[in-house]
Structures are given as C-alpha cells and as structure tokens.
C-alpha cells in the first residue's frame, strides 16, 4: 500500500510544522499556488510505521551477506555514521565563514593527504559527488590538459570492452569519441589491439585494474608506455581500488588521474543507490586542472589555518561540479573510516578482500562451478560462468541469482562484465567471515542440485520475497512512474 493510500483528507502530523499558519498577503495572487500539492495526509505514527515496514522489504549489508561484484558491499562502520552526524557537522552551512569551518576543513584536508598517499598521486579534489562525476572530472582534466597545450586534435578516448558503462558515457559527456578495444581470453587487455588503436587522435585511455574481469592487468606498464608514447594520458577507474588498496598504487602503475568511490573502498553507506562520493587524484601534470573547491592550509606557524582554494587559487581548474563542495557527509565518513583503518590497515583491506575472493572461488570451483578465468588469481572478486548449466539444465545466471534470495543471500552481480556469458561477478569483501562465505557456497551447491532435479523450482524463484519476479516489460510499456490520486 502506498503512503498516499493511507492518508485521508485533512490528516496531519501536527507536531512537525509551525502551529500557526502565517499570512502571506504581500505575494500577488497570480504568483500563488492554485492547486494544493497532492502529498500524503497522514499521521506521524502512520509515517513511522509505513517506512519502517518498507525498510523491512530490503536486503542490506546490515541484514545479509551481499556479495555484489564491483560494488564492494562491506561493513559500514556505525561509528563513522555517528561521528559524521554530530550536530556541529550537520548544522554547518556550506557557505559559513572559515572561522566556523576549521573542524570540517581540517578533516577534509587530512583526507586529501591520506588519499594522495594511498594512490601515489600529487593532488586530490574531493568535490565529485559520485564515481561517474569523478570520471567526468578526470576526463575533463585530460581534455583541459591537451587544450592548454594547444593539442586540439585529440578526439578519442580508448576503453577496453570490459569497462563499466559509465566510462564510455563519460567520454561522450566530455565531447570525446569512444574507441573500444578487446580483452584477451585471460582477461588482460589486447595490447596489440591497443597499439593499433593509439595515435595522435588519442586523448587517453580509461581502465580499471584489476579489471572488471576480476584479474590484475599484468601488462599495465606496457599499456602505460604505449599510451604515453602516443601522447595520451591514463585514467584509472577506482571502482576496484579495494583490491589493491595500500598494496599497489595507481600512481606507481603509470596512471595520470583516477577517481575513487569512497562509498565502496572507504566503506560509506550506499543508501539504496547513493549518495556516493568520487574524489579525483592526479599526478603533477594535471594538478592545475583539479575541480574546485579544495581544502588548503595556511601554515602561519602555530595552529594550522585551513581555507578553501577556489577559482582564484586554481585558475585553470575544470571548475565547480556541485553548488557547494560535494557530498560532505560522505567525505567525512570516509575520513573517519581512514582513521579507523590507519596506515597498516590500508593494505589489510586488499589482502583480506583478496583472500576471501580466492577462497570462495576455490570452494565454488571444487563444487563444480566454472570460473571464467580459472588460471588466474582472483583479486577481490571473481567470475563464475553458468553457461554449462544454462545449456544443459536451462537454468540461467539470473535463475541462480533469484534463487539465492530465497536462501537469504543477496545475488552477485549478474551479466556483467558483458563479455562473459551467464556470469556471476562475486565480491565478498574483507569484512565477511568464513562462515558467511561457506553458507553462500553451500547455497550455491544446493541450488545446483535443485537445478538438476527440478529446474522449474529454480526458474520460478524467488518465493520468499515480498514479490515474485516482476514484469519489466509491462513496467516500461505501461509506464506508471507516479501515483495519481
């Protein structure tokens, strides 16, 4: 039942609005609203109950193992949430003077320093509000760099075929054409194809490493040389940074710019689809182009004095990407997470996420599932392909995914990357215990047995959720995207 349907005309949650209804006689009638907005008319208890119960219809990290590949669904420390929710932080106006901002600015500045160190880059801007905006900022900086040098012929961004959809979409938003290059059977980029693809038209390449195939790109240094030699720059998509955090630094691999997904690698809550935060880090060459604002420091001896660096300080910046300075609350949470984890903890993140992924991969392989890249080490995630099961039993990756819900596990990412058929991309993260992983593997084995003995059971799943499989075609054809009373 929709919240609207719980309402009746005239019902209100009285305590929540001013008790007196003030006059507004000085506004001309023609500028006043004619028809009242058809918002819900409900009591406070109804709202609390409705949304509490809605929340109970979700899977989440706090309730389930959620091995969604490429999404890094790790534990979101409650302490980070608590600290970021201190009234002093929640009530600060984004345009408050620096005299009322030192606490926030100190935290932001220190996070910038931490991110520089852990990525091996020379500068950081925290302002992009999500991974995709970070990508945009990164490619826009590549563009600004070429333009500043008067190199106007570079019109193409190279993207391996396994890349996230945001990569090509971003390149287009920055006014580039996209050239896709193939990936070999072992998951590495086809370097020969890359060599053919590069040229004076090459602005840069967008890559992740480890790639979305869940393997480390072994030719990364060759790739960097090929692209750099052609005059292009290397963009690192930080979606998979969790796999190498503190272990290998993008800067050391030859990347010129990268974004990070703080909501993944730095464990801030995903919130059912956001907010995220997608800071960018750059090498020396791109420093002048970082998006504004950035936290700076004026060290006049004694206590440091923090300040905002804007257009004046960075005249060649690609500019501002949000009205204020990005998803501040997420930035704070990431900073707090970094304080929790600390210097030594950074590489533990990659070590234990890698250990977990390799463990699960091995257990699943032993149970008869096909790994997509079985001769490779898994990184923090790995892919199994259910092509055999789809062919022999008629049970697809989607069916396995839906049936897993009945067993109380969120499904891994399905059908991504696009180049592996019937695949599940599985990322356990470092915060899950062996017990949870064993439970998941047992469920997969059980589902395989079910698929063998009663395929329809699996194909009809899920059975235990608030709804069964939904009619997506109807959703698109008979578009109903808002309630009409």
């Amino acid at each position, binding site marked *: 039942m929709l919240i609207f349907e719980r309402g009746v005309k005239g019902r209100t949650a009285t305590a929540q609005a001013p008790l007196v209804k003030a006059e507004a006689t000085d506004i001309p009638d023609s500028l006043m609203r004619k028809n009242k907005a058809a918002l819900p008319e409900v009591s406070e208890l109804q*709202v609390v109950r409705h949304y509490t119960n809605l929340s109970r*219809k979700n899977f989440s990290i*706090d309730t389930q193992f959620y091995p969604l590949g490429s999404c890094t669904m*790790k534990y979101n420390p409650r302490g980070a949430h608590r600290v970021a929710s201190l009234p002093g932080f929640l009530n600060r106006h984004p345009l408050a003077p620096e005299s009322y901002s030192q606490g926030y600015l100190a935290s932001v500045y220190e996070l910038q320093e*931490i991110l520089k160190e852990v990525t091996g880059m020379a500068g950081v801007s925290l302002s992009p509000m999500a991974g995709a905006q970070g990508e945009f900022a990164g490619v826009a900086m590549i563009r600004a760099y070429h333009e500043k040098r008067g190199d106007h012929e570079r019109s193409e961004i190279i993207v391996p075929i396994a890349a996230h959809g945001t990569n090509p979409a971003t390149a287009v938003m920055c006014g580039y054409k996209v050239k896709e290059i193939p990936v070999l059977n072992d998951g590495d980029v086809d370097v020969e194809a890359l060599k053919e693809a590069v040229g004076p038209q090459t602005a840069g390449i967008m890559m992740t490493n480890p790639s979305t195939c869940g393997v480390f790109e072994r030719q990364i240094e060759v790739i960097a040389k090929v692209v750099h030699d052609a005059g292009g720059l290397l963009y690192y998509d930080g979606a998979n940074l969790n796999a190498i955090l503190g272990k290998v630094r993008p800067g050391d691999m030859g990347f010129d710019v990268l974004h990070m997904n703080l909501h993944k690698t730095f464990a801030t809550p995903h919130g059912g689809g956001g907010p995220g935060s997608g800071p960018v880090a750059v090498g020396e060459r791109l420093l002048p182009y970082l998006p504004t604002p950035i936290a700076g420091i004026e060290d006049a001896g004694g206590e440091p004095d923090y300040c905002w660096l804007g257009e004046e300080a960075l005249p060649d910046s690609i500019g501002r*990407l949000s*009205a204020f*300075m990005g998803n501040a609350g997420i930035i704070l949470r990431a900073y707090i997470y970094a304080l929790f984890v600390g210097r030594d903890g950074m590489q533990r993140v990659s070590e234990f996420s890698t250990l977990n992924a390799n463990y699960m991969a091995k257990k699943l392989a032993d149970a008869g599932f096909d790994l997509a890249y079985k001769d490779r080490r898994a990184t923090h995630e790995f892919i199994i392909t259910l092509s055999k099961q789809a062919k022999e039993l008629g049970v697809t990756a989607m069916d396995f995914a839906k049936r897993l819900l009945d067993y109380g596990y969120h499904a891994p990412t399905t059908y991504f990357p696009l180049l592996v058929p019937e695949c599940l991309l599985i990322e356990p993260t470092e915060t899950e215990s062996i017990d949870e992983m064993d439970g998941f593997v047992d469920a997969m084995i059980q589902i395989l047995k079910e698929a063998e003995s009663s395929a329809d059971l699996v194909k009809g799943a899920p059975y235990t959720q608030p709804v069964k499989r939904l009619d997506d075609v109807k959703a698109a054809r008979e578009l109903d*995207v808002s309630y009409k009373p």
Partner: protein
Amino acid sequence: MPFIPHTEEDIQKMLETIGAQSIDQLFDEIPTHLRAGALDAIPPARSEMEIMRLMSDRAEQDSGALCFIGAGAYEHHIPAAVWDIATRGEFMTAYTPYQAEASQGTLQLIYEFQSMMTALTGLDVSNASLYDGASGLAEAVLMAIRANRKSKSKRVLIAGTVHPLYKKVVNSIVHNQQIELVEVAFDSTSLTTDVSALAQYEGEDFAALIIAQPNFFGTLEDIHQLTDWAHQQKMLVIGVVNPTAASLISPPGEWGENGADIAVGEGQPMGIPLASGGPYFGFICCKQALVRQMPGRIIGRTVDLDGKEGFALTLQAREQHIRRSKATSNICTNQGLAVTAATIYMSLLGQEGIERVARACHANTNRLVGLLSAVPGVEVISTGPRFHEFVLRLPKSSRLVLEHMAVQGVLGGHDLSDTYPDLENCILVCVTETKTEQDLNGYVNALEVSLKELETVEC
C-alpha cells in the same frame, strides 16, 4: 584488525583451501617492483573512542552560530523521525535496487518520492534524483537540448538571477559538448528578470530558457510572462525551484499558459541537514512527453508473476549501464539516502505542513525586514514580493560587517559584493521558520554592534 573478522586459524584454513602459502602469494601476478611501500603520511589506526573524541572537538569548533545564510542551502526543522528511519540499516546499507524482489522497500519509496515531486512541481514525471540542484540543472540543459525537436540549437538562455554557482556548475559540465549558456541581464533595481530584456533574443534559436523562482535574490519573478514568451519562441522552459516555496507559490506546472517543461532544484530543504553542503539531492521533473530524455534512474510500478503490485527500475535503456556511450547521461548513483529522508519528510509535513513552513519562513523574513527599517544606514534593496531571502545594502564593507557579526555568533548573510559589482556591500539574508523573535532581535543587535565597531575603528 578493525572490521576484519579473520583469526589466524581462519587464515590458515583458507590458505590451505586455496593452496597458497601466504596471503602475499595471492598477489604474485603483480610485478614486485610495483608494490607500495610504507604509507607514512597516513596516521596509525585509532579506536572508535579516540576518533569520537577527536571529531567531537572538531564538530564543536564549527558550532554555535546563529545562521542567516541561505543562498541555496536552507536551515529547516527536520523531524526526528526522518533520519531515525532513513538510517535504519535496511535503507542505509542497501545498494542500488538491482534485485528488485529484494529491494521493494527502496523501490516503493522512490516511486512515492517521484509521486511527491510531481505533486509539488505540478509536472507529470520525476526521476529518482540527481546529485544536487546545480548538477541537476546541467542535466536539465542537456535534456532540453536533446528533447527540443523544434530547435537544433546548442545554445540556452539563462536568467541572470539564477544562482551564480549553478551557472558555474552547468558550464563546467556542459561546455565540453559545445553548449553555450547565454545570460539574460537582470534589472538591478527590481532584482528580477525583466521581460523587456528578452526582446533582443526574439527570433534567435535557443533550446531553452532557464528561470529561477524564487530567484537567487529571494525575489519572485513574473514566471507566467517569461514562460509564455519562451514558449512563443519555441524554447523549452526550465524552472529552477525551491520545493518549500513550491507549496505556497505557483509551481512550474502552473506557469503561464502551458506550464514549464522541466523543473529542477535542490532537494535539501526537504529534510536534509545543511551538513557543509551535502549529501543533498537534485530533483528533476518534466512533462510526460519528455520522459525518455530524462537522465538517471526511474522507478515504475508493475506486477509480479502472480499479478501482485511491485516496483522496479524502468526505462533502463536510457542509462549508461545498458546504452554505454549512447546513454542520456553518465550518471549512475542517485542520492538514495537523501531521497529516503526527503520522502519521509514530505510524508510527515504534507502539503499543509510544508505550506506552513513556507509561510513561517516568509513571515519571519518580512519581520526581519521590518526590524531592519529601524537600523540607520542599511537598506533592503530587494523590494518586490519575496520568499525567504532579501538583499541588504550595508553602509560599510560587507566583508567586515559579516566578520564582526560572526564574532558575535551571528552569520549575517552571504556576501554578494564579489559576484555582483553592482551590488557592492550587499548581502543576501535568509530567515527560515527556525528563527524566533529573539533570534531576529539578535540579528539586529549584532548588526548594530558591528556597524558601531566599524564606525569606531574608522575614527
């Protein structure tokens, strides 16, 4: 190892299963010379207790002022229930609802959100949110250019009274696609967009006209005339609106003869704390005909195998994960958690409650304007009908006056001097429903004291 559950025994068991000697061996495909060294610039780990202490002190540093700054982010009362429920683990720690059956909570909530935004804006459809109001406007511009079949132009007219930071953000985002923003000068007396200023653009090809209501100065534009003019010129109309105000004043869907085509804005006033600028959320609504040009996620209502009502992501063919380089935008995440809070806020307040908030803001603002008329030397120069902000001209350096007021614990407003040479020593002052009579008197007092202090200094 904070947050990592592995015991030594677990590790041994797992390595045995894998057939590896050590965790380090799992990284043997990575060239050794690429391995990172010690990360000395990162401080050592701290316990939650230590972090709480450190950060409480920092939060304390930023606290305590009475805030009269608005300029795109507004202090409102947020019912306790809003974040109590929005931060339930099931909402807060879920991912994008890709597995619809296991995400009906988030999906239904977003459907309800979309419904509320269309109700408030008076338009037909809404998406699941964008990053913030400013980047939302950039998406609206891209959308309008795609959607306007009557125009091939990549130029867009924008009222000079639109938030200056929004203009910057839009430019950052769209300029690489050779899109040009052409700014319409505003009337520096009325601080509104004079329809006569548009005359010079008549007959030119623009994809859209962007208007803000209330505008950046808190003043109400004659949106009906502006909208009708743009439609006559075959432009789409993009309205930048404040959702609180929309409960009281004419919403985009009611502008002019046919209503605006697209409405965008900052969702922050709907239950989102100021929080240093984010996470907020941008909203975007449009007429039904434009729905397939809308960027970002959209949730639709449908049925399951048993015919039972359910909710799912829909029209995904517009999005990057399907369309890749041909998508309507590269946007992927929305601002789900903020939307969750806003949906609860709008449910709790309803039309009646939001309107009461809007009216209280308006009345308090006028009350402060009234009090200021007794302060010698200052002048409220935005005299037209306003919502909850006004422009105040000071007899001294606005920068210095604001600094002096801040020392007294009053953030007196947002300085306009740097951005608008015509508005020297002017500040933009905002008063919401949160301010009491005592607060207003506190404002006046801090202002008078500051002016006096500056008087003395100059002697």
